[in-house]
């Protein structure tokens, strides 16, 4: 883009200002500002205030100092961040590879009933998290659940444990429930990307003797990498904003012993309060701000470092 258009600099073309663009954009901009941008800045602003002796006073970064400096706040926060990170890693390691594998299988031309599988796998994504949480709580219930009964059928009942109630397995279980629900999204995106690969490229590969697995690794995977990048960033944003499933399955205290507490549930408890604990809007806003910064950092990292290095192919 270094060379300029030849006619450009000599005779500047006078174009009328296209007002209609601004006018058409205005309503959307107004709504977006009112419901997204203003509340966001208000939250950021609120995190700089706290209530001292019934007076709202400006405390600067005092709330952040409390969050990271106070032993208890910091312990809660780092615990939530750690759990959130594990939650994210499980999604990246389980949900996305399975999504890619499913998409690869669906795109095999000889597969029968592909439309049925596609719909069936995508269906949980459309369900409300309340239903998903409730269904899985029932399936895994040690008392009425089908999980212990089905394990019993194959003689493996001893493998069953009340997974949702044990501190070392609860977070993994909740993550896997979330994976089950959302695996359809990477599958669909990758499936669309795979369908976009032109026949000629595949045929050329076959002429060169690149078939089967090596065709997938060497031809298809590089071509769907941008889609995988998008999925990763969607997973990241979704996971660090997650709240609903943990809340429905484990409650606002995210038990047992805080082992499933993620940033969303910590924010909820702090901001709205819980049981006898009264809500603390300033500290809630502080946690919300930190969450916003974490997500912003992650997205920027992706946009400015990773996305620029992904090679794109145009056909």
């Amino acid at each position: 883009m270094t060379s300029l258009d030849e006619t450009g600099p000599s005779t500047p073309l006078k174009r009328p200002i296209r007002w209609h663009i601004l006018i058409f954009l205005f309503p959307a901009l107004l709504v977006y500002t009112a419901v997204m941008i203003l509340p966001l800045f208000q939250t950021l602003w609120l995190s700089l205030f706290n209530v001292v002796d019934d007076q709202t006073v400006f405390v600067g970064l005092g709330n952040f100092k409390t969050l990271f400096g106070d032993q208890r706040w910091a312990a809660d926060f780092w615990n939530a961040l750690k759990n959130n990170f594990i939650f994210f890693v499980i999604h990246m390691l389980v949900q996305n590879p399975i999504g890619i594998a499913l998409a690869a299988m669906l795109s095999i031309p000889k597969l029968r009933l592909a439309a049925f599988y596609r719909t069936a796998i995508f269906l949980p994504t459309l369900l409300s998290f309340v239903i998903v949480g409730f269904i899985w709580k029932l399936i895994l219930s040690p008392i009425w659940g089908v999980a212990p009964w089905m394990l019993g059928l194959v003689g493996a009942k001893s493998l069953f444990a009340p997974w949702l109630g044990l501190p070392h397995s609860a977070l993994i279980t909740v993550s896997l429930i979330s994976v089950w629900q959302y695996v359809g999204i990477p599958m669909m995106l990758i499936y669309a990307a795979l369908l976009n690969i032109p026949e000629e490229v595949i045929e050329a590969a076959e002429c060169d003797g690149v078939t089967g697995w090596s065709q997938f690794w060497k031809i298809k995977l590089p071509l769907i990498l941008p889609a995988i990048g998008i999925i990763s960033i969607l997973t990241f944003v979704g996971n660090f904003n997650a709240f609903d499933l943990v809340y429905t399955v484990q409650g606002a205290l995210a038990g047992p012993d805080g082992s499933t507490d993620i940033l969303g549930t910590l924010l909820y408890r702090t901001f709205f309060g819980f049981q006898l604990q009264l809500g603390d809007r300033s500290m809630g806003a502080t946690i919300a701000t930190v969450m916003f910064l974490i997500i912003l950092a992650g997205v920027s990292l992706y946009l400015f470092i990773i996305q620029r290095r992904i090679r794109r192919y145009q056909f």
Partner: protein
Amino acid sequence: MTRTIVKALLLTTSTFAAVSAAHADATLTIESWRNDDLAIWQEKLIPAFEAKNPGIKVTFAPTAPTEYNAALNAKLDAGSAGDLITCRPFDASLELYNKGHLADLSGLPGMENFSPVAKSAWTTDDGKATFCVPMASVIHGFIYNKDAFEKLGIAVPTTEEEFFAALDKIKADGTYIPMAMGTKDLWEAATMGYQNIGPNYWKGEDGRLALIKGEQKLTDEAWVAPYKTLAKWKDYLGDGYQAQTYPDSQNLFTLGRAAIYPAGSWEISGFNAQAQFKMGAFPPPVQKAGDDCYISDHNDIGIGLNAKSANAEAAKTFLSWVASPEFAEIYANALPGFFSLNSTPVKMTDPLAQEFVSWRGKCKSTIRSTYQILSRGKPNLENETWAASANVINGTSTPEDAAKKLQEGLDSWYKPAK
């Protein structure tokens, strides 16, 4: 299609208009979280009041329990809340009073019907102002399956030794799960466990007030011992109790699969409707025969006056009626398990409710140890107690460690007045 909708809308608006036109005199609206009680208010309580007070109409307008606090706060701030506010116990309501949302009711006629303990949940720390009329309390204890006890030849336990002997016997027999309780929802372990058996160890009000004054610590034997007992419970709970939720526990008991249920009296009406067997109840067993017994008789619900109400006089008439023995009798019988706090004894017909309330005569009453003052800071002692109790029963924390953690949390913000 559109026309039908428009017609329907017009019809509804005109109905509303007609309804509001009919209310010529004062109309009082009650804010509440007890949507389960809607029928009782509409069919029994409000008609009884309106019959005596022509000219005052009362509307009961409940919200979902989990949304109540937030919705009420928003309505009060906006000035659109009802005239009468159902009060949560302790700090949630105290905060409303301090903000000027609730009126001082200390001089209300009828207030003299309540003892200071009954009013403690809705009185300022200095004891000067009372801002809600106490309505009801709930009592903790154990509900048991009478048929199961008869079949296995078990007598109702009164001491801890007898209690564990009974559990052993039920376990050895194998027909029933000895005790229906889970730790998944955390609060079951704390409320039905720790706060249920605890008062016998910390001597009820003596221990609770000493804790608030700073004379006792949660690491003292009286406060650790209930955890030690709770830790022994895990052998008697059902398989997978770690993932057993509160409704699971209720169902296990009412389906007759479990013999003993650590309970709160609010379960009575639900259990009466569900269970097909005879039920009995016993108070938390004492450590040694002859020990004084203590029960948790926890103030749960009250009703106050919105300070900005336009119908304050009519509302006060209503509140005085709520403070009367007449209200107490209707309420306690309509909702067995929610016991009137009125000093006048109330005649109740439900045998299980009678059993629960009879303990007030032989045992000393206290309220839950974590509710007054001690749950004002962060970390919140009540919420921490939930986690600690569940950890102790799950065996992931020892009683001593759990108590130590609670005391450290409390020390971090609570400085007892010297």
